[in-house]
C-alpha cells in the first residue's frame, strides 16, 4: 500500500514535463509547423529556470516564467528559419536541438550554474486535505504547476476548439492556401503558434530543474523532448490524449526506480527500455488502428508560399 501511494504520488512530477512539452508541440503543429526541436527548447527552459533561481534569487514561479520566455526567445530563431526563410522544418528543428545543447552549456558554464543546487518549487499545503490517508499524499501534496497544468490544458483545448483564433490556427495548419484566401495572415498565426508552443515546452524544461531536479547539469533533458514528440503522434494531436499519454509515461518513470529499490528481480536493461518500447508500441498501434485518420494537420511540415503550386 505504501509502495502504491509513494509510486502514484510521484507520477505527476514525472508527467508534467511530458504533458506541457506535448501540449506545446500540439499548439505549434496545429498551425502546420513541424517542430522537432522540443529537446532543445526543454534544455533552454531548464537552463534558464535554474539560472534564474541561482543568480536572480527569484520566486520559483518567476523562474518558470523566465524559462518560458527564454525558450520563446530561442523559438524566434526557429520562426525566422521556417516561416520567413522557409527553410526545411525537419532540418531547422534538429539544428535548434544542437544549437541549444551548445548554447546552454556555454551560458551555464560561464555563469557557474552547473551542478549547483537550489531550493526550488515546493509542494502546496492544503491543510487537513493534505494529511488525508492515501488521497492526501497523491492529490493534495503536489506543487502548484501540477494543478496549473490541468488548467492550461483546459484553456488550450477551449481556445483551439471554440474560439475564432483557434479555428483560424487550425485552418492555417490544415490548408494554408484556403486560410490565406479567407484573409487569415498565415505567417502571423504560425509565428504566434511557434512562440506560444515553445513557451510551453520551455516551461516543461524549467519544471525539470526548478521543481524536479533542483540542479542543472549539461544536457539534462535526457531525451524527454523526443518522447514528447512521440507522445504527440500517439495522441493524434489531441491535447487530452497527450495528457493521458504523459501520465502513462509518468507512471513508468516513477515505477522504474521503485521496482529497483524493493529489489524486484527484473532485468535492468529491460526495465530501462520500457518507456521506449511503449513509445514504439503506441506508434505502431496508432498506424495500424481501425481509424485511418491520424489527426495530423494537413499542411504539417510544408512551408507556405503565397500563390505557389504544390
Amino acid at each position, binding site marked *: 500500500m*505504501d509502495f502504491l501511494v*509513494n509510486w502514484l504520488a*510521484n507520477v505527476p512530477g*514525472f508527467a508534467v514535463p511530458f504533458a506541457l512539452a506535448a501540449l506545446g508541440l500540439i499548439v505549434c503543429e496545429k498551425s502546420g509547423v513541424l517542430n522537432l526541436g522540443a529537446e532543445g527548447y526543454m534544455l533552454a527552459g531548464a537552463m534558464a529556470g535554474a539560472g534564474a533561481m541561482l543568480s536572480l534569487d527569484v520566486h520559483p514561479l518567476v523562474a518558470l516564467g523566465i524559462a518560458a520566455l527564454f525558450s520563446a526567445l530561442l523559438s524566434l530563431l526557429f520562426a525566422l528559419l521556417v516561416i520567413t526563410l522557409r527553410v526545411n522544418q525537419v532540418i531547422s528543428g534538429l539544428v535548434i536541438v544542437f544549437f541549444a545543447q551548445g548554447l546552454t*552549456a556555454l551560458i551555464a*558554464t560561464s555563469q*557557474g550554474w*552547473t*551542478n*549547483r*543546487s537550489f531550493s526550488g518549487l515546493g509542494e502546496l499545503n492544503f491543510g487537513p486535505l493534505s494529511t488525508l490517508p492515501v488521497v492526501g499524499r497523491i492529490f493534495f501534496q503536489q506543487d502548484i504547476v501540477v494543478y496549473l497544468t490541468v488548467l492550461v490544458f483546459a484553456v488550450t483545448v477551449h481556445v483551439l476548439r471554440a474560439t475564432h483564433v483557434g479555428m483560424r490556427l487550425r485552418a492555417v495548419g490544415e490548408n494554408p492556401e484556403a486560410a490565406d484566401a479567407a484573409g487569415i495572415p498565415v505567417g502571423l498565426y504560425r509565428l504566434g503558434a511557434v512562440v506560444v508552443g515553445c513557451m510551453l515546452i520551455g516551461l516543461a524544461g524549467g519544471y*525539470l530543474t526548478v521543481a*524536479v*531536479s*533542483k*540542479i*542543472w*547539469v*549539461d*544536457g*539534462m533533458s*535526457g531525451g524527454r523532448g523526443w518522447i514528447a514528440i512521440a507522445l504527440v503522434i500517439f495522441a493524434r494531436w489531441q491535447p487530452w490524449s497527450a495528457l493521458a499519454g504523459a501520465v502513462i509515461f509518468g507512471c513508468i*518513470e*516513477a515505477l*522504474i*526506480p*521503485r*521496482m*529497483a*529499490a*524493493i*529489489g*524486484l*528481480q*527484473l*532485468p*535492468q*536493461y529491460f*526495465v*530501462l527500455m520500457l518507456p521506449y518500447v511503449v513509445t514504439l508500441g503506441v506508434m505502431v498501434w496508432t498506424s495500424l488502428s481501425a481509424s485511418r485518420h491520424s489527426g495530423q494537420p494537413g499542411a504539417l511540415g510544408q512551408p507556405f508560399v503565397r500563390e505557389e503550386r504544390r
Partner: protein
Amino acid sequence: MGMTRLSSTLAWGLALSVVPAVIHAEPFKLEGDPNPALVIFSQKNDGGWSQSLDEARAKVEKELGITIPVVENVPENATAIRPAVELFIDRGSNIIIGSAFGYSDTFLELAKQYPNVAFINPAGTTNAANLQSIYGRTYESQYLCGMAAGALSKSGKIGFVAANPFGLVNWTVNAYALGAQKINPDATVTVVFTGAWNDPVKERAATEALIEQGIDVVGQHVDSPTPQIVAQEKGVYGTGHHRDLSEFSTATQCSSVWVWDKYLTPTIQKIAAGEWETSPYGAFLSIKEGGTDIACCGDAVSEDVKKQIMDERQAIIDGKQVYAGPLSDRDGKERVKEGEVLSDADLWGMDWYVKGVISQQ
C-alpha cells in the same frame, strides 16, 4: 574500391590491436623539458570526473613549477580530438594527458604518429610504448566509504545510486557492501541503476525511492551530486564519488576521490628522466600509487569509526586486499578461493554481487 577500403581498414585495425602487446622494449625518451597539456572531453568544472583532473593539473603545476595548458569540451571522436592534440604538439607540448574512454583509439593513432610525445589517458583502454591508459582501483576507496556508511546506518539498510551495471561500477557496489559489513555484518546495500551517468532527474527519483524503502545512508557512483543533495533534504547521510561532495551537501560524510596528481607528478618526473616504462595492460592505480583515495570523514562519523577507517586505509596501502578469498557471491557460488585474490581481468569483468547486495537482475 569499397572492398579494398574495407580490407585495408581491417588490416590497419588488426595491426593496431597487435602492436601494443609487442612493443614496450625500451623506455620512452622525451626531447626537451616536460611540457604537458590536458585535453578534457566535457567541461572542466563538471563537479566530478573532469574537475578532478583539472584540480590535479593545478596541483601538478605547483609541484613541478610548470604551466599546463588545458582545453575542455573536446568530444570523444577523432575529428575533434586530433586537431586539439595536434595544436598542442605544434605549440611544443610533449606530454598529452587525456580524460576519456572515448579517446582510446585516437590516442593510440596519435601515439604512433608522434613517437616523441608521451600520452596518458585516464579511463582509456589502449597502451603503447608512449601511451599509458590509467584508472583507479576505486573499490579500495569505496570499501572505506562503505565502512563509514555501515557505521552511520541505524537501520542497517544502505542505498546506492549507480549508473550502469558493469565491471568498474559493480566493483564499487560490492566493495561498498563489504566495507559496510565490516562494521555491521548484517548491513544490506540496495542499488538502483539509473542507466545514465548524469541525469539528475533519474538520480533524484532513485534516491527518493531508496529512502522510501527505509535506507538511511546513500552511496553513489554517478557523476552528479544529486543523491547527496536529496539525502540532505530528507535528513539521511550520504557518501560521494569522484570528488569530495561535502562541497554540495552537508549529508556527505565520506567520498571516494580522484587524486591524479599523486600519479601524474612522479610520472612526469619519470618521463623527464627517461625512466618511464608503460605497461601493455594500462596502469591500474591503488590508493598507494595515487589515483584514488578518500575524503573522510564528516562530523557524523565518530572518532572511533574514523580511526578504524584510517587504519583500514593504511592496511590497504600495506597490501590488504578488498577482494581476497574466500569470497562467494550472493547466490553462494565461490568467486575467490581461500588464499587467492581476485585478478584484474576478473575485476573488469565483474558481473556478480556479494551477499547483502540487493539489486534488480
